[in-house]
């Protein structure tokens, strides 16, 4: 099993990537195409959920 700090590093990295993706998805949701915007909101919801799921669990992730 990998150690706690390795896992924390990975989660912190994933969380940072998802934060950037959410910012990009927010831009997509502002598009004027109603058909596409609905799908972008669908995608944004998934990213936002994953951001919650990977939220830093403790100090190890915050430090990573």
């Amino acid at each position, binding site marked *: 099993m990998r150690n706690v700090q390795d896992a924390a590093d990975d989660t912190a990295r994933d969380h940072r990537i998802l934060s950037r993706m959410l910012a990009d998805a927010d831009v997509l949701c502002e598009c004027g195409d109603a058909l596409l915007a609905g799908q972008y909101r*669908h995608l944004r*919801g*998934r990213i936002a*959920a*994953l951001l919650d799921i*990977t*939220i830093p669990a403790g100090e*190890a992730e915050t430090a990573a």
Partner: protein
Amino acid sequence: MNATAQQFDSEPANPFVDSARLARLASLSRAELEELQLRKLRRQLARLNATSSYYRARMTQGGLDPDKLSTLDQFRERFPLSNKTDFLADQTEHPPFGARLGIAREDVALVNMTGGTSGLGQEIYGRSQHDVHMQGYYHALPWFLAGLRPGDVAINCVPAGGLTTGGWGPGEGLRIIGATAFHVGGTLSTDAKIDLMQRIGAVHFIYASTNYLHTLTEAMMRRGIEPKRAFPMLRTLFIAAEGYPLEWAERIESLWGCRLQEGYGSTQCAGFGASTCADGVFGAKGGRGLMHLFEWETLFEVVHPETLEPVASGETGEMVVTNLSIEGSPVIRFRTGDAARFISWRDANSGRAWNAIECGTIGRFDDMLKIRGNNVWPSAIDAAVFSFGEVAEYTGRVYTSGDGKTEIEVRVAFTDAAATCDAATKTTLIERIRATIKERTNVWMTLTVCARNELPEFNYKARRWKDERQQGYRL
């Protein structure tokens, strides 16, 4: 209780090896876990303070400023409890979702409702796109813990779609895991399900209500199909929604040749809030096992239903739920009416700092029957009756006799094998069942035997009891 966990040829994969994230959550100390809860709770309350007049009013009522919340105890002391009546009143005043919605109306991507079996009315929940994924995650999580992995074949016996959380969460959860899912619930008869499962052959996982797993097993036995020979690849049976006796669980594991796992969930939890781990529904030393609470996602309190004080480890209380991540129609300190036996993380002794509740004994405070001065829960009668392997199904009714007395009739149908026994054996069996019911409920009931096809076949949650006493007084 002698029932214990059995050993199987194929044990589920270890979730804490396969997921570093889960291993990390399992490694948190109690203080770290509560710090994470507090962080998420502050965020949730701050958001609701800005978006929900229902919850803003409750925070004002309790004198609680989300930015200044410093401990979980402060939250429990100051945030008023809500119950079903509060939610229904809110919905009436602000239809259809109530002011507790907490997201913009146009951001509602899925509508879920509670079942309405209480007779009071149905709570309505508006879920966002984010929540739809979270509901899937809250189904994927216990199933991953139970060993479900990408590519596994899963049979979902719970009716899909419709208005319930249980109709939508499982599909999302199975897609999140990457399992190959057959959503057979509500669309195929029990025999058609069995035919399909036989055609598939390599089935790894079955999800069903406790009652429906009983129905499915009974139907297989009736057709002369031995589950463990018909489905040798099966690793996990996952049940939810109803209690059961351990003798039943032991028989089920023996017949299917695999581990029985259980989850505790509800619409208010937006899916599962707790589930079993490696030992399944049996404790490491025998007896009942534990469902470990996913406390980093949902804040659970288990309180005495009258004093509202937290119960001690080992005591039964009412589950009070607070969603930490759900944004559409979240519940904050909501009294579920669910009765559970609380086991503290120290007593759970799992190596994790997660509190737990006991397997197989989840009941409802509001379906309690008051019979001759005794508090009788249908789950206690289920446990008594189904501790006898000879029983296929039963129903019960409480009614008022012509001379005004409360009477209880239990109609029992035997399995095909037991039904062929001689009359004397059946009489002895009926007396033993009757005595067991009395032992567990303190009430003598009248038992009659009927044919299996005279009793209903329950496809999801069993509704075995009818209280007809009011009818007895009608003129």
